[in-house]
């Protein structure tokens, strides 16, 4: 008997993990904040080793650089929020839309093509309306094609949407080359002199005149999507489908149509962002227009658990890191702004680790006499 107990004990793992739902919200938040701070401290030490400067000095440069252009900070944050929001409906359905980058790019591309070729041929208002419609159509196509194949043939949507990004990038490079008639890589800023197809508010100060409309529109979209997901029947159908496809089917829902409809909504949001890029902010389309914002959007949406307020906070924070590190890059002449990716990567690693301790409880193996007796 004695022997038997010890042999059972020996096979018990050193740590046992249990699921938990009982952590108070403030404690969970505190853990996440601590993880973020830890990651920032770690990355500052890493940066100071590479750059060869005092970490506090680097952090100071980062903070002052980020708040140098406050509207830029807010605008970048809101754009990231837009990418995150574009992904939320699909994500609620457990549809991994990796293609927000590509969807925004084709939207912007479509608007730019119209702006370039029809800029001087029609009334400005009609031009902008056509640009809007065309960019919506382009983005919807980019989002819906993977959804159709997922719905009917169960094609892997993660890789499909991922590939669509690179097809979009190739198309942008090609169309830019065509617009520039093969002389240069890009045609530059479109309608720079005539400002046809631009929406500008000349009465506003230059720091905000191109940012104000995207900020307002994306915030409105966020509110709309929040209501759509939490308060409407369609939003409820999306979350049921995300929890269990079978349940959705047995409840009599048309799962294929729900999938396609949800991706149309994703496409519309991406199309609006692309349209805003073309008409308000950039007035041109480049292959690096979105950078890694589509992926950042996924991370934001996932780690905020689709709560729009937290999403806004996380987006602003990421924009702070991005703008801060670009000033660090400029100050210490580091070449490309890669420090931001390193810091964001480290922060997300830390948060992923902390998620574990929020969702699970770890118990160390104990050898108490009481337990031994129970055996």
């Amino acid at each position, binding site marked *: 008997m004695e022997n038997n107990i010890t042999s059972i004990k020996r096979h018990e793992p050193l740590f046992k993990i*249990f*699921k938990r739902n009982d952590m108070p919200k403030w404690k969970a938040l505190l853990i996440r904040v601590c993880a973020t701070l830890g990651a920032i401290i770690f990355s500052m030490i890493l940066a100071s080793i*590479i750059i060869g400067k005092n970490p506090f000095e680097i952090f100071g440069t980062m903070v002052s650089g980020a708040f140098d252009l406050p509207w830029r900070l807010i605008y970048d944050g809101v754009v990231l929020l837009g990418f995150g929001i574009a992904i939320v409906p699909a994500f609620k359905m457990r549809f*991994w839309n990796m293609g927000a980058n590509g969807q925004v790019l084709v939207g912007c591309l479509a608007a730019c093509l119209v702006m370039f070729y029809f800029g001087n041929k029609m009334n400005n208002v009609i031009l902008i309306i056509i640009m809007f419609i065309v960019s919506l159509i382009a983005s919807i196509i980019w989002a819906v094609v993977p959804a159709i*194949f997922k719905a009917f*043939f*169960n*094609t*892997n949507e*993660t*890789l*499909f949407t*991922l*590939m*669509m990004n*690179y*097809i979009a990038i*190739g*198309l942008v*490079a*090609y169309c830019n*080359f*065509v617009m520039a008639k*093969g002389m240069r890589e890009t045609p530059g800023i479109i309608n720079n002199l005539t400002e046809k197809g631009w929406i500008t508010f000349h009465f506003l100060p230059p720091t905000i005149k191109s940012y104000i409309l995207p900020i307002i529109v994306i915030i409105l979209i966020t509110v709309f999507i929040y209501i759509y997901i939490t308060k409407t029947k369609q939003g409820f159908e999306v979350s049921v489908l995300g929890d269990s496809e079978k349940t959705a089917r047995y409840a009599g829902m048309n799962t294929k149509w729900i999938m396609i409809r949800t991706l149309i909504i994703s496409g519309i949001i991406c199309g609006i962002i692309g349209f805003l890029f073309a008409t308000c902010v950039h007035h041109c389309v480049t292959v690096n227009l979105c950078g*890694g914002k589509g*992926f*950042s959007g*996924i*991370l934001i949406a*996932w*780690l905020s658990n689709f709560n729009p307020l937290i999403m806004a906070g996380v987006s602003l924070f990421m924009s702070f890191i991005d703008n801060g590190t670009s000033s660090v890059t400029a100050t210490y002449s*580091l*070449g*490309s702004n*890669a*420090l*931001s*990716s*390193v810091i*964001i*990567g*480290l922060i*997300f*690693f830390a948060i*992923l*680790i902390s*998620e*574990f301790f929020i*969702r*699970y409880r770890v118990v160390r193996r104990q050898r108490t006499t009481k337990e031994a007796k129970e055996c």
Partner: protein
Amino acid sequence: MLVSLITNSVAMAIVFLFGCLGETITERVGNLNLGIPGIMCLGALGGVIGVDLTYIIFNNPGWFALMFDAIFFSALFACIGGAIYAFLTVSLQANQNVTGLVLTTFGVGLMKFIGTNLNSPNLSAASKIMKSLFNVGDKLGWFGRIFLNYGFLVYFAIILAIFASIFIKRTRIGLFLRAVGESPKTADAQGISITKYKYTFILIGSAIAGLGGMYYVMDYSGGTTFTDGPIEAFGWLAVALVIFSVWKPTMGILGAFCFGLLYILPMYININPIQLKFFDIFPYLTTVIVLIFTSIFGGKSIQPPGSLGVNYYREDR
């Protein structure tokens, strides 16, 4: 011209082959690692650091020291990336897609951040030594130029792919590895340690994928600046290639060659540069088409591993 088209395609293909092989092994054990682009970047960074260190330690290093250090450090760096991924997804049950994306962000960023400060002229010298090592092709006519005209890593990749295929298909450990990927619950009931298998093969897969990044810098591009290179895009292509090759390493060799050919071909076609731009999307387009075809006409043997992308938590029932 045909000969040089083939050799260039093969040289390009090896970048994809390493990445694809690493990802195939990882996916066979049930983990969809979207961090492969980041891991390839870490591998490239590690290889460059290894070569740099060799030049610092020895003034005029021989081929063995260079080769060993490049492979060792690139595998080491890639393994660190893989270990982070494995720790988060296997031990800490984090979502695989999210963890992979974070790893890609981090790896690409770290390569660019550290790599820009590491631009030494030693790289091209080292690259020449590494390329010419087994390069005996010129003496043997067209046959030699097609089959024997590459650096050591090219042969290494192909041998590794064949070996991996035999290992997965024919050995006992390979069988267990497939069991873990198909149904971890069943494998666990059989007494196979899921954690051990997942860790081991995620790390091995990462190390192999990392060599792809190192190969691109040290062999294919001849040791030129690597930080603005397209390693990230190659990484995504490697992930796509896993589907193209339906999770079989030997098919990966063929698929990698097709991708290499698609990538190189436009340079050999006599068309104007505008149309040339359009050819850049062909590898991605092909992948999409293959993805669609395998999902529509897929038999049982070409389906992804059963538990791909799903973490194993023993107490879930």
